[in-house]
């Protein structure tokens, strides 16, 4: 848009939300050009609505003016999901962060999209309940963003991903309508499951304004184990063994040596620095059962090559172990100025060969690659360490990413387990879907958004070259980040 069109757009948006909450000033909108991915793009305008009705009017204005829009909440997308790559309006949900209802009788909560994931569980915990999906970024990411990407987290192994916990949505459509879909407080309803379809559609069909989620009683006890291995292959085999022995852990996470180094330096959780790999395993249950299962898992881990198994003695030790894991990405700042995180998935039994192939890629290219991931689900997060100030490195890293995702796809897996396709992997989607598959998805999309104004440039391939952003023109502080900086990010 040119400046005149931008001013006109901003004026219309201000009329809806008030002068304070809409702006198109080139300086102010810069804050909304990025998320947690390396890509950036400037929006034409930003609007921060305060109600569903305001969102609906904003969406209608965008449709009338033919301007794209991108919904944004915690902006912790690692896949460029909220980068306004086609310009247009960023709709920020920061003000729509209210928990509207908690219905313990029906095991539901109703929230606005801007509610931070962890805030919901903190709100529910005194009542003996919680919201189950817990992405590692749960201190920053929001339920709205979780719905957009169908977010996962460490505990999906037993409890499923976001879509298994969302039963209803209120959405704004490009027509300006606000509709409520899904069984909401029931489990099933009649008609097509529009809620299930929209969760994980990355904001490409509609904008959610209200969300019905399941809530669950907090497990009476959780036991967390740290199993220490000499190498990742032995640890990977132990993962399959635990699952094969009929134990249903709530989570099985793996970290390799390089990750342990970073995490331990950042969080002092007590991870052994000389281990080749560690598994973090958790079981939930009533105290006697959790105790029992922890013992059984511990035995299996030892039988399958663990040099040592430590059981968290108390809640503080357990929290320390999880803090290390959930802060792993941000701790990488200690190893490298930049890192690039992948989100590939392979069948659990293919973990050893996948990790070995990734190690070979690392050796061949000279880039260090850490692995910290959801081993129980086969959901890998290889982190390629690099320095964006060194010319050509980022381009090389992107090629490594493509290679790793192709590897996952060829082994029967997927290019993304929880981060979403976004901008980052829109070309990689061809690794897993044919043109016929994508055509059907596109037909479905056009039913909701015939003008393709909803988060354009995401999820679907453009068959163009991926834009490689110029190295950021910023200064860089030397040394480890402050603890509070590490605590807030992904």
């Amino acid at each position, binding site marked *: 848009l040119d400046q005149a069109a931008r001013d006109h757009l901003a004026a219309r948006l201000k009329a809806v939300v008030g002068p304070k909450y809409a702006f198109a000033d080139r300086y102010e909108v810069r804050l909304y050009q990025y998320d947690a991915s390396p890509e950036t793009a400037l929006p034409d305008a930003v609007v921060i609505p305060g109600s569903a009705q305001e969102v609906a009017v904003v969406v209608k204005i965008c449709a009338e003016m033919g301007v794209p829009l991108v919904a944004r909440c915690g902006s912790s997308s690692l896949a460029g999901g909220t980068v306004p790559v086609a310009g247009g309006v960023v709709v920020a949900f920061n003000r729509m962060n209210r928990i509207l209802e908690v219905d313990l009788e029906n095991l539901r909560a109703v929230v606005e999209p801007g509610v931070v994931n962890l805030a919901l569980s903190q709100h529910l915990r005194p009542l003996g309940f919680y919201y189950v999906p817990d992405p590692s970024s749960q201190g920053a990411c929001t339920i709205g963003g979780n719905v957009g990407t169908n977010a996962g987290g460490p505990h999906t192994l037993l409890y499923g991903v976001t879509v298994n916990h969302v039963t209803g949505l209120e959405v704004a459509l490009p027509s300006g309508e606000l509709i409520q879909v899904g069984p909401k407080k029931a489990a099933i*309803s009649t008609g097509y499951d529009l809620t299930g*379809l929209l969760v994980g559609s990355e904001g490409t069909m509609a904008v959610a304004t209200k969300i019905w989620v399941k809530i669950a009683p907090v497990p009476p006890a959780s036991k967390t184990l740290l199993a220490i291995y000499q190498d990742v292959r032995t640890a990977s085999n132990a993962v399959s063994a635990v699952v094969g022995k009929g134990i249903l852990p709530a989570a099985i996470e793996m970290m390799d040596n390089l990750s342990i180094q970073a995490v331990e330096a950042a969080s002092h959780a007590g991870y052994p620095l000389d281990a080749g790999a560690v598994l973090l395993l958790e079981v939930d249950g009533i105290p006697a059962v959790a105790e*029992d299962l922890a013992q059984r898992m511990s035995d299996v881990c030892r039988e399958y090559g663990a040099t040592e198994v430590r059981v968290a003695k108390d809640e503080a030790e357990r929290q320390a172990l999880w803090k290390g894991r959930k802060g792993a990405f941000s701790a990488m700042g200690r190893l490298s100025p930049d890192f690039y995180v992948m989100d590939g998935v392979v069948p659990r039994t293919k973990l050893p060969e996948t990790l070995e192939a990734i190690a070979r890629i690392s050796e061949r290219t000279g880039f260090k690659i850490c692995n910290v991931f959801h081993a129980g689900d*086969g959901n890998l997060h290889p982190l390629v360490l690099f320095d964006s100030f060194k010319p050509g490195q980022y381009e090389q890293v992107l090629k490594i990413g493509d290679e790793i995702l192709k590897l996952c796809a060829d082994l029967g897996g997927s290019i993304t387990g929880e981060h979403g396709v976004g901008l980052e992997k829109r070309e990689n989607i061809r690794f897993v879907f044919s043109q*016929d598959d994508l055509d059907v998805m596109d037909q479905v999309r056009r039913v909701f958004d015939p003008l393709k104004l909803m988060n354009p440039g995401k999820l679907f391939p453009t068959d163009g070259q991926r834009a490689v952003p110029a190295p950021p023109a910023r200064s860089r502080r030397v040394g480890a980040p402050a603890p509070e900086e590490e605590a807030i990010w992904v």
Partner: protein
Amino acid sequence: MGLKTQRRIPGKQISVEDQRRFGVDGLLPSKAMYPASPEEAAQSLQVCAEAGVTAVIHGGGTQIGLGNPPRSYDVAVSTARLDQLLEYEPADLTCRVQAGMRIQVLQETLAKKGQRLPLDPPLPGRATLGGILAANTNGLNAGRYGTVRDWVVGIAVAYPTGKVARAGGKVVKNVAGYDLMKLHIGALGTLGLIAEVNLKVQTLPEAAATLLAHFENVSDALEAARQLARSYLAPASLALLDRKTLWECGVTADWHWTLAVGLEGYAREVKAAQTQTSGVIRSAGGRIDALEAPPGFWERTRDWPAAETDQVGLHGMSSLTGLASMVRAAGPEARLLAHPAAGEVHLRVPIGTAELMLWRLRQATGEEGRVIVRSAPAEMKVALNVWGPPPPGFPLMQGLKRALDPKTTLNPGRFVGGI
């Protein structure tokens, strides 16, 4: 439709027996198709679409009475030859099957490796996975393990355009592309033919136990169910039965209301759950007379909603509190089977009072819930409005139908709002 006799209807000549078997609400197809691959299925549908004829997809036929009578029905497309297990890796806890496979056959294969698919729809010896997805048929354990949508990780669908398109994948965690599995689950075959299904499976529970409790009045039974449904040691199966339904499920006791509780899990967990459940039941005023169900009880209870009767079958779905309202509204003489942890209730109602009962239930459940007619004589279906009012977002649903089945080849008119 006066031209019907002049149209050339594609497909194989159909035997009289198959014609009757594939009939829907008294309408009989004149031809049948038996594709043996997703590609053949897509070609079959394309041939129908291009000839301008209509098709009904047929799996095990256990839910064929669901929905409005089709506006027209020329060709039956059977998934009988799509019955192969394609992949199964126990350590990955996943499998890939063709949609015509009967769920019992799959369960037997999984059981050999100590695993199962935790779905227990009625008539598993007949019900196919494709049909279970299309009709979104859930069983007694949905309150604990979730519904069909929670176990499907990938799908291959044959469309009337002649194309086969996939969504999801084989792995348990995957957010690449749109989740079209959700779109086809519960779509009653109105958007395409589900040809292959990729599923999550789980390890068989270590232990199981049953408690049968009886109550003088339904409110006490509902209160016990309410507490059990939201407790951490929630039952795997929870069923509320009236006296006559209990008899039909094989328990000849003179109990007003029975709460059947199935517990599953690790051995110590089940023991603890037994103690807790007994406590809840007693404090709600119930009596536990049997710690064991008679042989075949759970199977009969599971199958009860799908059994063929000369009565009208109703199916209510609501929130947990909405379920309680529906059960109360049904009255003391109702024949019903409720799943209080899943918010579902199935009723059998004499033809003469079906309309009144349907009205009462729809009043009781409010806008939150839905009550549909599961089975009824075809001539009654229109008057009963089998799906109830069109759900919110109905224009989008019509749009999806137009986009994926532009010539209305599949199941015309059977779905909500006449889709």
